[in-house]
Protein backbone atom coordinates (compact mmCIF):
# COMPACT_ATOMS: atom_id res chain seq x y z
CA UNK A 1 0.00 0.00 0.00
CA UNK A 2 2.61 2.47 1.13
CA UNK A 3 4.78 1.47 -1.77
CA UNK A 4 1.98 2.23 -4.13
CA UNK A 5 1.42 5.61 -2.62
CA UNK A 6 5.06 6.48 -2.92
CA UNK A 7 4.97 5.51 -6.47
CA UNK A 8 1.97 7.66 -7.09
CA UNK A 9 3.67 10.57 -5.43
CA UNK A 10 6.71 10.21 -7.55
CA UNK A 11 4.61 9.92 -10.60
CA UNK A 12 2.92 13.12 -9.66
CA UNK A 13 6.23 14.83 -9.11
CA UNK A 14 7.51 13.64 -12.38
CA UNK A 15 4.50 14.95 -14.16
CA UNK A 16 5.00 18.32 -12.56
CA UNK A 17 8.60 18.39 -13.58
CA UNK A 18 7.77 17.50 -17.08
CA UNK A 19 5.23 20.24 -17.15
CA UNK A 20 7.88 22.74 -16.17
CA UNK A 21 10.50 21.50 -18.50
CA UNK A 22 8.68 20.50 -21.60
CA UNK A 23 5.14 21.71 -21.65
CA UNK A 24 5.67 25.11 -20.16
CA UNK A 25 2.21 26.38 -20.75
CA UNK A 26 3.08 29.74 -19.24
CA UNK A 27 5.96 30.47 -21.54
CA UNK A 28 3.92 32.18 -24.19
CA UNK A 29 2.10 34.30 -21.67
CA UNK A 30 5.36 35.22 -19.99
CA UNK A 31 6.72 36.52 -23.23
CA UNK A 32 3.56 38.28 -24.17
CA UNK A 33 3.06 40.05 -20.88
CA UNK A 34 6.71 41.05 -20.69
CA UNK A 35 6.42 42.61 -24.09
CA UNK A 36 3.30 44.49 -23.10
CA UNK A 37 4.83 45.71 -19.87
CA UNK A 38 7.91 46.83 -21.76
CA UNK A 39 5.91 48.91 -24.20
CA UNK A 40 3.91 50.47 -21.41
CA UNK A 41 7.10 51.33 -19.55
CA UNK A 42 8.50 52.93 -22.69
CA UNK A 43 5.39 55.09 -23.04
CA UNK A 44 5.59 55.98 -19.36
CA UNK A 45 9.22 56.99 -19.72
CA UNK A 46 8.46 59.06 -22.80
CA UNK A 47 5.63 60.90 -21.07
CA UNK A 48 7.68 61.41 -17.91
CA UNK A 49 10.53 62.89 -19.92
CA UNK A 50 8.14 65.12 -21.81
CA UNK A 51 6.54 66.37 -18.62
CA UNK A 52 9.87 67.02 -16.96
CA UNK A 53 10.56 69.79 -19.48
CA UNK A 54 7.53 71.63 -18.13
CA UNK A 55 9.04 73.00 -14.88
CA UNK A 56 11.73 74.79 -16.87
CA UNK A 57 9.13 76.57 -18.96
CA UNK A 58 7.09 77.48 -15.92
CA UNK A 59 10.16 78.83 -14.16
CA UNK A 60 11.24 80.74 -17.23
CA UNK A 61 7.74 82.15 -17.52
CA UNK A 62 7.42 83.18 -13.88
CA UNK A 63 10.69 84.96 -13.43
CA UNK A 64 13.97 85.77 -15.08
CA UNK A 65 12.30 87.97 -17.63
CA UNK A 66 13.70 91.17 -16.26
CA UNK A 67 15.47 93.02 -18.97
CA UNK A 68 18.71 94.41 -17.64
CA UNK A 69 18.80 97.10 -20.26
CA UNK A 70 19.79 99.93 -18.01
CA UNK A 71 23.20 101.27 -18.76
CA UNK A 72 25.99 100.70 -16.29
CA UNK A 73 29.04 102.86 -16.62
CA UNK A 74 32.29 100.97 -16.96
CA UNK A 75 35.10 103.32 -17.88
CA UNK A 76 35.96 106.43 -19.90
CA UNK A 77 37.23 105.49 -23.33
CA UNK A 78 40.28 107.73 -22.99
CA UNK A 79 41.37 105.75 -19.94
CA UNK A 80 41.42 102.58 -21.98
CA UNK A 81 44.04 102.72 -24.72
CA UNK A 82 44.15 100.12 -27.48
CA UNK A 83 45.57 96.80 -26.32
CA UNK A 84 44.49 97.23 -22.73
CA UNK A 85 41.74 95.89 -20.57
CA UNK A 86 39.82 96.75 -17.45
CA UNK A 87 37.78 94.66 -15.03
CA UNK A 88 34.35 95.52 -13.74
CA UNK A 89 31.30 93.72 -12.36
CA UNK A 90 28.20 93.11 -14.41
CA UNK A 91 25.27 92.52 -14.17
CA UNK A 92 25.65 92.12 -10.41
CA UNK A 93 28.55 92.71 -8.05
CA UNK A 94 29.17 88.97 -8.04
CA UNK A 95 29.80 88.70 -11.77
CA UNK A 96 33.32 89.74 -12.65
CA UNK A 97 33.73 90.96 -16.20
CA UNK A 98 36.46 92.11 -18.52
CA UNK A 99 36.35 94.97 -21.00
CA UNK A 100 39.00 94.87 -23.71
CA UNK A 101 40.01 97.52 -26.19
CA UNK A 102 41.59 95.42 -28.92
CA UNK A 103 44.55 96.51 -30.99
CA UNK A 104 42.20 96.87 -33.93
CA UNK A 105 40.24 99.41 -31.92
CA UNK A 106 37.19 97.31 -31.11
CA UNK A 107 35.57 97.06 -27.72
CA UNK A 108 34.78 93.59 -26.38
CA UNK A 109 33.41 92.61 -23.02
CA UNK A 110 32.76 89.23 -21.45
CA UNK A 111 32.13 87.86 -18.03
CA UNK A 112 35.55 86.80 -16.95
CA UNK A 113 34.76 83.72 -14.88
CA UNK A 114 36.16 80.84 -16.90
CA UNK A 115 33.42 78.48 -18.02
CA UNK A 116 35.54 75.55 -16.90
CA UNK A 117 35.99 76.07 -13.16
CA UNK A 118 35.42 79.78 -12.70
CA UNK A 119 39.02 81.03 -12.57
CA UNK A 120 39.39 84.61 -13.78
CA UNK A 121 40.23 84.98 -17.44
CA UNK A 122 42.90 87.42 -18.60
CA UNK A 123 43.50 89.36 -21.76
CA UNK A 124 46.80 88.42 -23.35
CA UNK A 125 47.95 91.39 -25.30
CA UNK A 126 50.61 89.89 -27.59
CA UNK A 127 48.54 87.06 -29.02
CA UNK A 128 45.17 88.81 -28.53
CA UNK A 129 43.42 85.88 -26.84
CA UNK A 130 41.71 85.43 -23.52
CA UNK A 131 43.66 83.11 -21.31
CA UNK A 132 42.61 81.19 -18.24
CA UNK A 133 45.79 80.34 -16.38
CA UNK A 134 44.27 77.64 -14.18
CA UNK A 135 44.21 74.86 -16.77
CA UNK A 136 45.44 76.67 -19.84
CA UNK A 137 42.07 77.45 -21.30
CA UNK A 138 41.94 79.85 -24.26
CA UNK A 139 39.02 81.86 -25.59
CA UNK A 140 38.65 83.73 -28.84
CA UNK A 141 38.80 87.45 -28.21
CA UNK A 142 36.35 88.22 -31.00
CA UNK A 143 33.47 86.03 -29.91
CA UNK A 144 34.34 84.56 -26.52
CA UNK A 145 34.22 80.98 -27.76
CA UNK A 146 36.67 78.47 -26.32
CA UNK A 147 39.51 77.63 -28.69
CA UNK A 148 41.78 75.44 -26.58
CA UNK A 149 41.98 73.73 -23.22
CA UNK A 150 39.23 72.34 -21.03
CA UNK A 151 36.48 75.00 -21.33
CA UNK A 152 33.54 73.90 -23.47
CA UNK A 153 31.16 76.85 -23.29
CA UNK A 154 31.59 80.41 -24.45
CA UNK A 155 32.06 83.32 -22.08
CA UNK A 156 28.86 85.34 -21.56
CA UNK A 157 28.94 88.32 -23.87
CA UNK A 158 28.30 91.77 -22.47
CA UNK A 159 26.72 94.22 -24.87
CA UNK A 160 28.31 97.64 -24.89
CA UNK A 161 27.31 101.14 -25.72
CA UNK A 162 29.53 104.16 -26.01
CA UNK A 163 28.02 107.56 -25.21
CA UNK A 164 30.00 110.77 -24.89
CA UNK A 165 33.27 108.90 -24.61
CA UNK A 166 32.04 106.66 -21.81
CA UNK A 167 31.63 102.91 -22.22
CA UNK A 168 28.46 101.43 -20.77
CA UNK A 169 27.36 97.85 -20.31
CA UNK A 170 23.91 97.49 -21.81
CA UNK A 171 22.94 93.86 -21.46
CA UNK A 172 24.22 90.35 -21.46
CA UNK A 173 23.95 87.29 -23.63
CA UNK A 174 24.94 83.96 -22.17
CA UNK A 175 24.58 82.14 -25.49
CA UNK A 176 25.73 83.91 -28.59
CA UNK A 177 26.83 82.94 -32.06
Amino acid at each position, binding site marked *: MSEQMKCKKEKHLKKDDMLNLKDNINRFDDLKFNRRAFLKTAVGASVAL*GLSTLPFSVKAFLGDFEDDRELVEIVKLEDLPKGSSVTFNYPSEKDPALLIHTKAGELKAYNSACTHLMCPVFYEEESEVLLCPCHQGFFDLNNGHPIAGPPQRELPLIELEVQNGVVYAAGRKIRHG
Partner: protein
Amino acid sequence: MAKKICWVIIFITLALNVVMLQWTIEAYLGLEFDLVFRYTVIALVSSAIALITLFKWKQVEYQKEESAN
Protein backbone atom coordinates in the same frame (compact mmCIF):
# COMPACT_ATOMS: atom_id res chain seq x y z
CA MET B 1 1.80 45.42 -38.89
CA ALA B 2 -0.13 48.21 -37.19
CA LYS B 3 1.35 47.09 -33.89
CA LYS B 4 4.86 47.33 -35.22
CA ILE B 5 4.24 50.86 -36.37
CA CYS B 6 2.99 51.70 -32.88
CA TRP B 7 6.20 50.35 -31.38
CA VAL B 8 8.27 52.41 -33.76
CA ILE B 9 6.30 55.59 -33.07
CA ILE B 10 6.58 55.12 -29.32
CA PHE B 11 10.33 54.65 -29.47
CA ILE B 12 10.71 57.68 -31.69
CA THR B 13 8.81 59.79 -29.16
CA LEU B 14 10.98 58.39 -26.40
CA ALA B 15 14.17 59.34 -28.22
CA LEU B 16 12.76 62.73 -29.12
CA ASN B 17 11.82 63.45 -25.52
CA VAL B 18 15.29 62.54 -24.27
CA VAL B 19 16.76 65.04 -26.71
CA MET B 20 14.13 67.69 -25.89
CA LEU B 21 14.80 67.42 -22.17
CA GLN B 22 18.51 67.88 -22.75
CA TRP B 23 17.94 70.85 -25.07
CA THR B 24 15.43 72.43 -22.70
CA ILE B 25 17.91 72.33 -19.85
CA GLU B 26 20.64 73.77 -22.03
CA ALA B 27 18.39 76.54 -23.31
CA TYR B 28 17.28 77.28 -19.75
CA LEU B 29 20.86 77.58 -18.55
CA GLY B 30 21.64 79.77 -21.53
CA LEU B 31 18.66 82.01 -20.64
CA GLU B 32 17.14 81.44 -24.08
CA PHE B 33 13.57 81.30 -22.89
CA ASP B 34 11.84 81.26 -26.25
CA LEU B 35 13.75 78.07 -27.02
CA VAL B 36 12.74 76.61 -23.65
CA PHE B 37 9.08 77.14 -24.54
CA ARG B 38 9.51 75.71 -28.00
CA TYR B 39 11.19 72.53 -26.76
CA THR B 40 8.60 72.08 -24.03
CA VAL B 41 5.80 72.28 -26.55
CA ILE B 42 7.52 69.72 -28.78
CA ALA B 43 8.09 67.41 -25.80
CA LEU B 44 4.48 67.65 -24.68
CA VAL B 45 3.16 67.02 -28.17
CA SER B 46 5.40 64.00 -28.52
CA SER B 47 4.23 62.72 -25.11
CA ALA B 48 0.65 63.06 -26.27
CA ILE B 49 1.51 61.16 -29.44
CA ALA B 50 3.08 58.41 -27.33
CA LEU B 51 -0.09 58.10 -25.25
CA ILE B 52 -2.41 58.09 -28.23
CA THR B 53 -0.24 55.50 -29.91
CA LEU B 54 -0.37 53.37 -26.77
CA PHE B 55 -4.17 53.42 -26.84
CA LYS B 56 -4.15 52.52 -30.50
CA TRP B 57 -1.77 49.66 -29.81
CA LYS B 58 -3.91 48.45 -26.92
CA GLN B 59 -6.92 48.40 -29.18
CA VAL B 60 -5.20 46.22 -31.74
CA GLU B 61 -3.44 43.99 -29.21
CA TYR B 62 -6.42 43.15 -27.05
CA GLN B 63 -8.84 42.97 -29.91
CA LYS B 64 -6.67 40.31 -31.45
CA GLU B 65 -6.67 38.35 -28.22
CA GLU B 66 -10.43 38.45 -27.94
CA SER B 67 -10.90 37.23 -31.47
CA ALA B 68 -8.35 34.47 -30.85
CA ASN B 69 -10.22 33.26 -27.78
